[in-house]
């Protein structure tokens, strides 16, 4: 017998004994029965004269169009500051949704099945802007007579062909202008003769654009890009919801979307360094089954499959990457790729009640797949540095672009990828949670989750790492290439791990009126190492041919040529020493995983006027967080080696100091579990529920977050992580968020201008919504202009000048902080400042969005809503960050502490929606 049948049986049995209702109540009951029978709402077979409403009338939905056009917008500040007055924007976003019961006219009237279908399309063209620096036209011909350093002094370019040992060099003293190890002559007039220019370099420069801006300082920031980008997308979501009797419910969803990002070109030649065009396709399907075994027991089982594919650079012309910082590159890394993420999730949850305990048990199994074909530099990378055109050992001499003109790269690399990689990993978890109400006003939650994570494997075992315990035949030292499932190696190089993740929370009504709630919670969890796109960890199956200069000040890695030499050994090349002399891919072989824990306490109080105020504090922290090779380097040279000074520029000597000297370095691909962080925050939240048409919510937070890995440059001292403990580079110490909605008190059922005639069509249905976000700035991360540490320190910090106040009285774009408070560290020394400054903050940001809506009712179910939304509607300009580069005493960066321009601009979106 169904639950509903039992309900009525119980009701009928009880009705035999119940007292007779008073006459007025009886009349109400009689009418209740008539109405519910007429509406077909009775399950006892008493439906009489049921109003047969066509199922089509139960369908609801909407049609909509959102329009954006630069005609409506303010010109973005970053564009108007470049003297332009237009930023292309044409955007149409349109779609529909329809939902209602499934029926077949004349056959199936009420099936218990509910359908929903949504479609959305996007057609968009907009401008992308970017300000960068490119060489002047004169510089491209070798004329460096006008090229200056950051202080405005002429930058001398030296002729590498004239390099010779200095017979007067005193090796007991540091290299300096007065004690040079090598002598090298400057080019006469600072002019590289035309016959010395590399033919390939000159040819490539024909594909480079001309300067079109003069922002400065000096000739810097001389190329402004305002390039069109296209975006097309079409997608659909379909849902089916079906009740299988009274105890079972099935919901299924299918979604797909196809998109094309027609990327903005930074310049319209094959040497374009901007992103490639990208094709997207996402597919998702899910099914959920809810079985209600009894009023106290519910089981939910579900399965979801998701696939997201992206393809870039199909049919694109080949061009190598020429990297000559600080100028804009030529060519692009990862020019062509195909990546697919597939995720399959099975889960089941069972809730039941036992005395004062509500128990929830769940199990979940997830399979992750990432298929990736993503060669980094299939056409080669050539990186140029100032070293080969400098006076050896002397900073602020030479220039990377001059080295390019001479065809002298310090580093070269080419990717050879023979096949895509098919990475897999799984996660399984069981969890038990108990909600316990020991007494009135007190609730406790405790839970435990046991999770098992398996490491990443490759479907065909085409995966490799450097096994740090294997002996390398080339030098007999530890560290050799190891392939998955070969030579005793496991498929994933790491063990599968099982972790217990506890959690607990408490809610306590501290006052008798239940208007004050104290909450506290604690949780600890682990995070598996995810699979990223890319083919990291496949060395030997794929090749990364690497060419390193024996001495970046004396000799190029290879001559600049049209093509780099192919691999010396055919692929797959799984020799133990196959990865020697490269930046080798290293997969951490320990069982470490990122660990997170958090605790919070808050007090919430309900106040008169439909207001709720909450105040609280939260702590979160973690260790073994995943970091990249800019924050961790198992093959780093100890800072004590800085005493070898200029000798470190000798690559053979330099590499001999590394723990694994057969490798130049290790590529960790943001998967190395070593980072640590801690965040402490206090917050205040005020929420006002709607009254007199106004509702609002405000949230203010003050926080401090520290870590030992974040930042734009990396870690200075890999051997003493405590020295790296400083403010998180993205920590915003104060944050205020406000959202509100106000229905204007005009029109029907409102206090003012209540009309019943045609005027109500004008006055009814106006509302205003808005959000505001004000955030304090992130810490300033200062950076010295020169890094003369022989490759020992990859991210050098600045020095603090004692006694000089880093703050300025009225920080503004002309000077945000006092650069005189910092200095470039001496050659072959580490900086003594922290990675991020503890007091200096970049400019904060403000954003105000506003939406005005007018709804016109076309009956009980139909309405047209017009909406105008202004994003950054105050057209507020947020300052860019100040220049953080600190130059040397002889060549100070004149731009240090200055802010170049601001960004942002008002965007208006008009929307029209018809709902039925």
């Amino acid at each position, binding site marked *: 017998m169904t639950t509903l049948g039992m309900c009525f049986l119980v009701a009928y049995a009880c009705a035999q004994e119940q007292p007779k209702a008073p006459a007025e109540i009886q009349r109400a*009951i009689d009418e209740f029965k008539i109405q519910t029978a007429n509406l077909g709402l009775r399950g006892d077979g008493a439906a009489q004269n049921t109003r047969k409403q066509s199922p089509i009338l139960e369908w609801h939905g909407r049609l909509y169009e959102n329009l954006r056009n630069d005609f409506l917008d303010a010109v973005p500040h970053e564009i108007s500051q470049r003297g332009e007055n237009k930023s292309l924007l044409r955007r149409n976003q349109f779609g529909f949704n329809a939902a209602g019961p499934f029926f077949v006219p004349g056959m199936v009237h009420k099936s218990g099945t509910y359908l929903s279908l949504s479609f959305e399309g996007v057609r968009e063209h907009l401008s992308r802007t970017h300000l960068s620096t490119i060489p002047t036209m004169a510089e491209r011909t070798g004329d460096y007579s006008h090229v200056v350093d950051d202080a405005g002094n002429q930058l001398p370019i030296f002729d590498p062909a004239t390099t010779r040992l200095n017979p007067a060099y005193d090796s007991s003293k540091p290299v300096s202008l007065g004690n040079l190890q090598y002598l090298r002559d400057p080019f006469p007039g600072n002019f590289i003769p035309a016959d010395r220019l590399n033919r390939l370099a000159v040819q490539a420069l024909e594909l480079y654009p001309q300067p079109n801006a003069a922002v400065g300082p000096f000739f810097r920031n001389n190329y402004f890009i305002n390039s069109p980008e296209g975006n097309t997308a079409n997608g659909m979501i379909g849902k089916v919801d079906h009740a299988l009797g009274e105890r079972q419910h099935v919901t299924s969803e299918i979604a797909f979307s196809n998109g094309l990002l027609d990327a903005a070109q930074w310049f319209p030649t094959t040497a374009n360094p901007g992103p490639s065009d990208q094709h997207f396709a996402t597919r998702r399907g899910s099914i959920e089954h809810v079985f209600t075994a009894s009023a106290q027991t*519910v089981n939910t089982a579900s399965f979801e499959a998701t696939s997201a594919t992206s393809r870039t650079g199909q049919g694109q012309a080949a061009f190598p990457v020429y990297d000559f910082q600080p100028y804009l590159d030529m060519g692009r890394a990862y020019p062509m790729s195909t990546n697919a993420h597939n995720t399959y999730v099975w889960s089941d949850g069972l809730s039941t009640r036992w005395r004062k305990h509500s128990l929830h048990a769940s199990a979940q199994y997830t399979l992750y797949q990432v298929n990736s074909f993503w060669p980094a530099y299939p056409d080669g990378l050539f990186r140029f540095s100032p070293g080969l055109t400098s006076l050896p050992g002397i900073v602020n001499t030479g220039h990377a672009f001059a080295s390019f003109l001479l065809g002298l790269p310090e580093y070269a690399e080419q990717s050879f990828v023979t096949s895509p990689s098919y990475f897999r990993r799984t996660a399984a978890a069981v969890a038990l949670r108990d909600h316990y109400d020991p007494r009135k006003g007190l609730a406790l939650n405790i839970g435990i989750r046991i999770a098992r994570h398996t490491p990443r494997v490759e479907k065909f075992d085409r995966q490799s790492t450097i096994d740090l315990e294997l002996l390398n035949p080339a030098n007999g030292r530890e560290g050799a290439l190891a392939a998955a499932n070969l030579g005793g190696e496991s498929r994933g190089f790491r063990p599968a791990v099982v972790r217990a993740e506890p959690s607990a929370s408490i809610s306590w009504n501290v006052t008798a009126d239940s208007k004050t709630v104290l909450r506290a919670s604690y949780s600890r969890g682990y995070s598996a190492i995810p699979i990223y796109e890319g083919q990291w960890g496949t060395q030997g199956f794929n090749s990364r041919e690497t060419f390193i200069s024996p001495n970046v000040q004396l000799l190029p890695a290879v001559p600049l040529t049209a093509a780099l030499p192919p691999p010396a050994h055919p692929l797959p090349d799984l020799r133990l020493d196959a990865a020697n002399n490269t930046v080798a891919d290293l997969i951490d072989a320990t069982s470490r995983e990122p660990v997170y824990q958090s605790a919070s306490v808050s007090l919430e109080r309900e106040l008169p006027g439909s207001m709720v105020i909450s105040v609280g504090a939260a702590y979160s922290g973690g260790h073994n967080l995943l970091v990249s090779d800019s924050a961790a380097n198992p093959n780093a040279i100890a800072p004590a080696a800085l005493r070898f000074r200029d000798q470190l520029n000798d690559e053979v000597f330099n590499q001999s100091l590394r723990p694994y000297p057969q490798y130049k370095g290790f590529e960790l691909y943001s998967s190395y579990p070593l980072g640590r962080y801690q965040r402490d925050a206090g917050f205040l939240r005020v929420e006002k529920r709607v009254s007199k048409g106004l509702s609002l919510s405000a949230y203010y937070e003050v926080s401090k977050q520290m870590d030992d890995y974040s930042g734009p440059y990396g870690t200075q001292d890999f051997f003493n992580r405590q020295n790296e403990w400083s403010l998180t580079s993205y920590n915003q110490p104060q944050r205020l968020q406000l959202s509100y909605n106000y229905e204007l008190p005009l029109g029907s059922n409102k206090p003012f201008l209540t009309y019943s005639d045609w005027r109500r069509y004008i006055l009814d249905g106006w509302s205003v919504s808005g959000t505001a976000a004000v955030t304090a700035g992130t810490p300033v991360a200062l950076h010295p202009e020169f890094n003369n540490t022989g490759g020992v320190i990859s991210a050098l910090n600045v020095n603090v000048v004692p006694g000089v106040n880093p703050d300025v009285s009225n920080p503004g774009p002309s000077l945000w902080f006092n650069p005189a408070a910092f200095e470039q560290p001496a050659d072959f020394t580490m900086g003594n400042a922290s990675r991020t400054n503890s007091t200096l903050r970049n400019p904060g940001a403000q954003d105000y969005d506003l939406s005005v809506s007018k709804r016109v009712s076309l009956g009980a179910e139909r309405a047209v809503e017009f909406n105008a939304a202004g994003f950054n509607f105050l057209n507020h300009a947020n300052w860019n960050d100040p220049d953080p580069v600190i130059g040397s005493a002889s060549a100070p960066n004149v731009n240090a502490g200055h802010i170049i321009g601001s960004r942002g601009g008002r965007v208006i979106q008009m929307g029209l929606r018809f709902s039925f």
Partner: protein
Amino acid sequence: MRVVAAMVCLALAAMAAPPRERITQVRIPVWLDASPGRELSAKDFTATIDGASTRVLQVQCPDYDLVILLVLDLSSGDLTLADPAKDTLTAEIRKLPPNAFVGLLRAQDGLLVLNDPTADRDAIYTLIMQQTLNGKTGLLATIDTAGQIADAMLQKSTARVAILYITDGDVRNYREDFTNPVINSSDSHDLSRRFPETLVQEKIAKLAAVLAAVQAPIFIVDLGQHGDRLNEAYQNGMKQLAETTGGAAFFSRSTTEIPEVIHRSFETVTSHYSLTLGLPEHVSSRPLIRVALADGGHALTYRTRILLRRRR
């Protein structure tokens, strides 16, 4: 041509609405800030409609007959919410006076009668405790129908009638979509979802327009503890709908509060006065209502607007 004209005339005749009955009186719920210490009658109240004095025809006091249509909308499957709610509901129902009858309905997947209004507390207890927590959230899909039923009961009887929704639903658990989910994940410039509450606000506005004509007060107890912006808009909408009818909404912010908010909702439901006001012959379709005690001794809480929709 004549045939077409005749068909059009016939169609227009068929579509023509039957003559509508003028509404001559309305009933509104009223609360006093404290007990007056005596039985109040019609002559104790004064009222104006659109500024013109009008007669208070009847007053039903808190000890008068009461029918509560209790609508359960328990769809989250969360026993930690539903079980304390069920326990408290049954306890509160047992405390009701004998002339308070309770009808039981459920809202998940459409409105359904579980039990006609009855004074049999055991029957209601059994049914409430048996209620399963499945299906899709139904408050927004059923509240207008529930209001329509209660209004019909008010028209036929002098008993006080109130609707009390007990819901634990998430706005994301509706069969109809109010979430406006991202359809094209590659569209990185989409700003249309910066105001995610638009769809639920639109639904609320439509329902509020319908409920403005409902004379029976609607009360809503929301057990769910959702802090996201979309559910905040949903909860504000529930409050707006309830207040449109002169009722109120109650929100539980933790499981420990559930007994208290349900208790408060029953107190509010049972303590209301039902005033029947006579309507002048010429009155606007959305008149402004003012009610006061003749002796001015207490502050009153009541709805100030009502939509007068003529009955067919």
